[in-house]
């Protein structure tokens, strides 16, 4: 009554939750994790080759979030800050595990006449599964550029590669993804390619 209970926080107010987390309030920590775990998983899945790796990225990212929560600039959206941490953590994992992996099937890839409308006929989970079958370097460059909107210069700096390598990896990643769709969804590919060809003829 006379003293303010420090364990209390406004569950609807993100600032209040974050302040409570800084005070090591467990309920607030769980609340914050619950609010952003789904978002974190969606990002981690794009950068990981399997669920286990995605889980590791999410865990490590949230650990960093709570370690550095006192440094969070409340003027910026928390989601953006979390996204940056997640991507950095994913890149750490890439450097640790995949940087020196080699992939030798680049030359065998063929650029097919691909109709982008096929993508709308495939579910998100299936698209994600295809992306995760790609080599880590392709997947990472493709995700950073096509999904998260980083430039080749930034990607080169993140991954410790040349800008040209980033561009070629992106191109190869696109081709690889199209190839995978053609292999795994031949009926869709044929249908949409035939439609496209007919449209072009008309």
């Amino acid at each position, binding site marked *: 009554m006379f003293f303010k209970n420090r364990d209390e926080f406004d569950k609807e107010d993100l600032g209040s939750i974050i302040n409570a987390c800084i005070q090591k309030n467990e309920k607030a920590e769980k609340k914050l994790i*619950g609010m952003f775990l789904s978002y974190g998983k969606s990002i981690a899945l794009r950068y990981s080759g399997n669920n286990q790796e995605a889980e590791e990225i999410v865990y490590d990212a949230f*650990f960093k979030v709570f370690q550095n929560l006192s440094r969070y600039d409340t003027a910026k959206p928390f989601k953006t800050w979390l996204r940056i941490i997640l991507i950095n953590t994913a890149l750490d994992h890439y450097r640790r595990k995949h940087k020196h992996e080699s992939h030798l099937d680049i030359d065998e890839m063929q650029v097919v006449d691909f109709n982008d409308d096929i*993508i709308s006929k495939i579910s*998100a989970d299936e*698209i994600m599964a295809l992306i995760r079958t790609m080599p880590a370097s392709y997947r990472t460059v493709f995700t950073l550029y096509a999904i998260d909107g980083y430039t080749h210069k930034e990607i080169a700096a993140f991954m410790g590669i040349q800008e040209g390598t980033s561009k070629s990896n992106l191109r190869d990643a696109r081709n690889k993804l199209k190839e995978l769709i053609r292999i795994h969804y031949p009926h869709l590919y044929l249908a949409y390619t035939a439609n496209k060809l007919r449209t072009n003829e008309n």
Partner: protein
Amino acid sequence: MKTEDFDKKLREKLLELNTEANEEEVNKVHDFVRSGKKKNWKKYGLFYLFGFLLIVSAGTIAISVSQWHTIKSLAATNTELVQQMKEIKTSGTNRKPRIAQYKGTPDTRIHDYQPAGNAADRPHSESGAQPATYQKKEIPSAAAHAVVQNDAPTPADENDIKTPAAKHKALLTGNASTQPEASIIPSPDDSGSGIASAPNPGHEGVVAGTLPAASGTSAISSLLSDHTAFPNAPAIALKASPNNTMPARAPSEIHPAAPVDSPPAHTELPGDSSIASDKSAPSLTLLDEDQNRGKSIMQGDSGRTRIAGGSAVLADTSLMVKDGRTKPVIRSFKYRVGLNGEVASMQLAAGVMGEVLFNEHWSVSAGFKYVVFDHETFADEDDYHKRKGKDFKHEHNGTSADTAQISNIHQSYRLFQVPLSFNYTFPLKKGFALLFSLGTDIDVYGQKDVDYNARIRNVSDATHQNSLSMIPVVAFNNIVTALAVEKQWSRFTVQLAPFLSPQLKKTDYKNANLYYGLRLRLLYTFR
């Protein structure tokens, strides 16, 4: 454009991805976040444990190599000693006796003591019933001078020696200036004759020393008697056991001189060659004899050992030589105390410290340090909230009115720390040394000092306010590694060390990952 469409459609598709998290997953992540700190500690702990073990191993190897060299050199010395003892043994029959030649001069410093009475009344023992009365006597000859030499005798030396009574050859070795270390070695011909003087009227006096049991007390008496017979010769009286019976010992044994009840003796040789022997002076004691060969080793009790045989070997008091074995003596610890000053990124420190040196290389230091951190400035309370995530007024409860506008906040911390470190010193030449140290600063007590301006609304002037409050500290939060250059002048030591201090756990007052700086220590050594 085509590729952009492809990317756009993929992006839209991926946004549809359903990745809802359930309560169980949230708990798992939360548990990881909570236990992750422990995992982090383990990681750091293992890293530093490994580093510490590496330093200890390297230091141990370095010490072992150093000791191996010492032992090797001691073994070589020991071999040399044994070899010399063998030479002494073999030369006992073949080698010419070593001679200390005394040539009297009319130097006024040369005195001879001549008993006043006859030979029978002459005292030879301090405890004897008959008092001794000596008279100083000038040596009349102009040829008197002393030669005390270590070298093997030359034929000329032998010719100079006159032993009228028993025709003894005698030898007095040792530098005259190191009188307690003089050895007296008789010739093989001395066997059975005991101590003999060579009271040559030409002032050549030689005394030698095997005291066989057969001669009994007559050895010293005969010496004195002979001396009486040649009053112009200088006399050297030697201490001997009352019955002149010397225990037979193996020639290779060298022992510190044992106290012997013996009459006082006083001998003066010309010039600097005087040998004075009294109660206070180190006594000369016959320790080793080989009656058949007429050879003995004499040793002073000053802690130094001289071995007859041509060369001298000095044995330090820290080394005992016995039965061909060497035993280095364990040294006691040394202590150093002094002042400690540090300049690091955004911090200044000063304090006192002490150090225990276990040996030449390893030491442990501890102390007490006062540290001032001066690194946080905020424009106003909004800036404070943005950067610290805390409400300024809530943090500093009661220091200002709720309606006050806070600005120009300057925050500093004061800490009391106990620095602890393990050090490995690598000695260099000319008093310089390199010192590697690994340790930590244990935070004991902390204070936060906050300066700010507070302005009550509708009041134009801001008032400067200050708040000093105690803060909770984390005792163990960092590791300190340093590489110091050390210079020693006598008991004073100066250490200059750049240091690195990675932060294992960030705190409010130490929120950087790494601190680095320069440390200066002035130390005084106690032994």
